[in-house]
């Protein structure tokens, strides 16, 4: 029991409030907005560490209002929403799930892992729940767009730009439905909403998905220059734009399988004309692919290869011959770097990033002297001729293709045991043997790629089955 009367109690309370106000003002006074270093202690710290709302990215008044209205209950509200979100997903209530995703992110606009998880959930998990490919594509886009918004709200975070690049690059380009997704990326299946053929929010220039992804990965690297990322080894992270260029070149080669006469049937007056147009389009695609491999090789070796990475053994570079190792060791001799240590770390990093494989592959694919691109083209066109009942024409193409391939393996011994190269070489010889069967001839004692054919006979059952399936 207190002996104070009512007035004394009120006075004491007022004095207490005033005393408590002093530290609150000192700590929490907001900055005036005119001078960035002004305000209370917390405002100064925010400014010092770029933690202010405006430093993080675009300001969303909705989000700020909600956070303010909920006071300290934001965490509880988010927890409840996340439980709802999982529940809607389990019950396949997609509209509700999507709306709840928005609500969660409204309350947590600067939680990077929340953006990453929710974007991945939409692009990878939800899309897989749908059967029709256009529906799946819609949800992949939802995930990618969501991630894009995350990059605007969090303008300095490299992880979110990387995540966006992953959706546009890997998800669109490497999913089971990649053939459809890559086409949709340039010509959206929702023609009603996107009458111009492309969703401007994700691909305003109507370019390849890998090129869009490359831009996003490059943004990630730009952001990473100023702010550390926490999702993977730095060298792998930094390699992504250049690696995506190589994926683009590779995808152009893969696309050729879907350039058929059917695509040109409507605009052609005869089947022959459609076939000719398809042939020309395939040829153009192979040529473009070769150019992109060349571009990829340049970027891989002169940009990524020249970048320096800090390792326990010292600063290293991927593109490093003995002179470079010597120069690096000389430069860092004060820090105790030795050539042996640097060689070991360079080797470790090259293996981790698969540097040498991509270097050789890109160089080989772009090499005009070996005619690698032409080899791919001839083997594929030979296959088409064989399947369309022209064994003689097929044989001629396949023999030329095999000769080019043999030159490739001669020039690039590292590829002699590389899976994809070996498979294509054996496939070419198998097709050639089929043409011989049809022409009533037997295999000669020597032929291009004989060594590879003899060495990899184990691949034949699988390739024979592929041949029987017709693709």
């Amino acid at each position, binding site marked *: 029991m207190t002996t104070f009367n009512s007035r004394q109690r009120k006075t004491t309370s007022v004095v207490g409030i005033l005393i408590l106000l002093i530290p609150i003002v000192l700590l929490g006074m907001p900055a005036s907005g005119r001078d960035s270093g002004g305000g209370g202690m917390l405002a100064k710290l925010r400014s010092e560490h770029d933690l202010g709302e405006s430093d993080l990215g675009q300001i969303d008044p*909705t989000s700020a209002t909600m956070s303010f209205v909920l006071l300290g209950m934001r965490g509880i509200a988010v927890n409840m929403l996340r439980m709802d979100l999982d529940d809607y997903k*389990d019950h396949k209530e997609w509209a509700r799930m999507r709306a709840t995703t928005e609500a969660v992110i409204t309350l947590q606009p600067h939680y990077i892992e929340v953006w990453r998880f929710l974007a991945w959930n939409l692009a990878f998990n939800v899309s897989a729940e749908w*059967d029709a490919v256009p529906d799946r594509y819609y949800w992949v886009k939802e995930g990618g767009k969501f991630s894009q918004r995350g990059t605007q709200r969090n303008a300095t975070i490299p992880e979110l730009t990387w995540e966006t690049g992953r959706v546009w690059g890997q998800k669109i380009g490497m999913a089971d439905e990649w053939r*459809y997704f890559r086409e949709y990326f340039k010509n959206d299946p929702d023609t009603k909403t996107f009458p111009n053929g492309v969703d401007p929010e994700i691909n305003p220039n109507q370019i390849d998905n890998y090129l869009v992804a490359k831009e996003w990965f490059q943004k990630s690297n730009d952001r990473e220059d100023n702010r550390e990322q926490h999702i993977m080894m730095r060298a792998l992270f930094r390699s992504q734009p250049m690696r995506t260029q190589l994926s683009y070149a590779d995808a152009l080669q893969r696309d050729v399988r879907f350039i058929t006469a059917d695509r040109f049937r409507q605009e052609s007056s005869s089947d022959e004309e459609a076939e000719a147009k398809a042939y020309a389009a395939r040829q153009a695609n192979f040529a473009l692919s070769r150019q992109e491999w060349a571009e990829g090789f340049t970027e891989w070796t002169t940009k990524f290869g020249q970048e320096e990475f800090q390792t326990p053994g010292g600063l290293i570079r991927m593109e490093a011959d003995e002179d470079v190792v010597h120069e690096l060791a000389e430069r860092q001799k004060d820090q105790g770097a030795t050539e042996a240590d640097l060689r070991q770390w360079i080797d470790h990093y090259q293996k981790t990033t698969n540097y040498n494989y991509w270097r050789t592959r890109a160089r080989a694919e772009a090499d005009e002297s070996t005619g690698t691109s032409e080899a791919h083209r001839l083997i594929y066109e030979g296959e088409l001729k064989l399947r369309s009942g022209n064994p003689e024409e097929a044989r001629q193409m396949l023999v030329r293709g095999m000769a080019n391939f043999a030159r490739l393996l001669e020039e690039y011994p590292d590829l002699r045991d590389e899976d994809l190269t070996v498979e294509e070489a054996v496939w070419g010889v198998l097709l050639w043997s089929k043409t011989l069967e049809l022409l009533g001839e037997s295999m000669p004692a020597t032929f291009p790629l004989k060594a590879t054919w003899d060495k990899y006979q184990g691949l034949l059952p699988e390739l024979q089955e592929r041949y029987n399936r017709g693709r």
Partner: protein
Amino acid sequence: MTVQPVSFDLLDGLIQWLVVFAGFVATFTVVALATSIPLYGVSGPKRVISGAMRGLTDFVSISPRRVYAIAMLAFKESIRRKALLVFVVFAGLFMFAGWFMEGDAARPELHLTNLVAFVFLAMTWIVLPVVVLLSCWGLPEDIRLRSLHTVVTKPVRRNEIVLGRMLGFSAVGTLIIVLMAAVGYGWILRHVPKDVAMFCRVPVYGSISFLDRNGNPQEQGINVGDIVMTRSFIEGGSKATAIWHFPISHEVDELKIESRFEAFRTWKGNMDRSLRVRFTLVNDEKDLRVPLPAYEVNEFRYNEVLISRHQEITDEQTLKKSEVDLFKDLLVPFDPQNEVHRKLQGDASAGVLTVHAQCLDRGQYIGLSPGDCFLRLTDRSFAVGYIKATVGLWLECLLLVVIAVTASCFVKFPVAFILTSSIGVVGSFAYGFLLEIVSGKQKGGGAAESVYRLITHMNETTPLPENLFTKSIVAFDKPLVEGLGIVRYVIPDLSHYGTSEWLAKGFDVPWNGVLLPAMAVTFAYFLPCLLLGYFSLRLRELEAK
């Protein structure tokens, strides 16, 4: 909807209610008699009986005029207590809701779902707490301020006070709901994309059974790994079949079957199209099968199949074509002895139609639930569905007012509020959980066992170690769970009141499966609560603060 409403048998419900009500009255009487003897000696039972007789008299000679006066008093009091300020919150929410509810141009139909869900969620969370607060507050505040003395000294009976309060607060709730519903309707119309058709489907549901891949009858299909098995799946290119029986009330020129199946691929298959389904109309008695054209599953959306009355079929042996009449040749008469027919909801006076659904893609699966396929009657307008959904919310509001006023008759405001809120929260969100605990299906045991598992980081499926401590925990939980088993009868299942779910998904709110049980539950609570409130107020010491 993926779940069809469970049919509600009003007569059966009424009989059950009478049994429970009689039990309630009997228990009440026995307890009153038993407690009267130690309190008043041998004259106790006599006092109880005379009290009961007085109560009976009070109820027989109830005055509508006085009830109306009390109700008006409660209504005016509520207005004076600024209950209508809730409209400020409501207006604020609706002004800014658009920020959170960006429409998606590619999926406008999903936008309507979200708009409807938001309007009803906002109304529920604004109206119900306010009305419960007012209802719990009224009587205790009157007792505290002694204004109730003025009332009870007038020729007003206690049951008239309780009833008047219930009606008055219900009127406040009704006013708020009507105004908010009107504003909400306008708001939906303003925000819904122009190309979205607003209507309410009127479905006729059937009963479902399954055949497995070898053609053997099964209760369910296959679970393909879903965490929540809302649909069970049948294998394509096999004998696996989902069989629906639909009640048909009258003959028409054309029937419309609407379905919403899910596709599940075990291998990539043909990516250029979705999985295909075929419906076959079957009359086993006449060995007649009429296959309808196959169609692709338009997943998570509705597929419409129109069946004209006259169907052409080809005999597979003779290749001769013939015509069958849907109603004369394919329907079988309703048989009350047939177990499948007995399960049907709705009028089957014209007969029962059997529809088989099969997936045509080998090795792929389609998922179905009972409510995934229905006969679609002529649509109702969105406004009708909206009004029905609002009636559902209104009934929930009435029920909570009844419980809150009753609680305020025997406890003070804070306790009455906590009690009513708890009943509302458990009834709305945790009734299923409660039933699982009581039935022993919920893994992890009772309260003490749950605390033990939390502290020891023990998974709820892991058996408890065998020792004296865990045995004592289980023994401690047992009476608590049994007590909960009794308490659950007092808590209403408020899941019936979720009428907006139907509207949000483009369906008319069903009368038999949803609105009728909601009405029945509300009125079932009304009389016992009125009695309890009346006797509590009569026994309550009104001088107490």
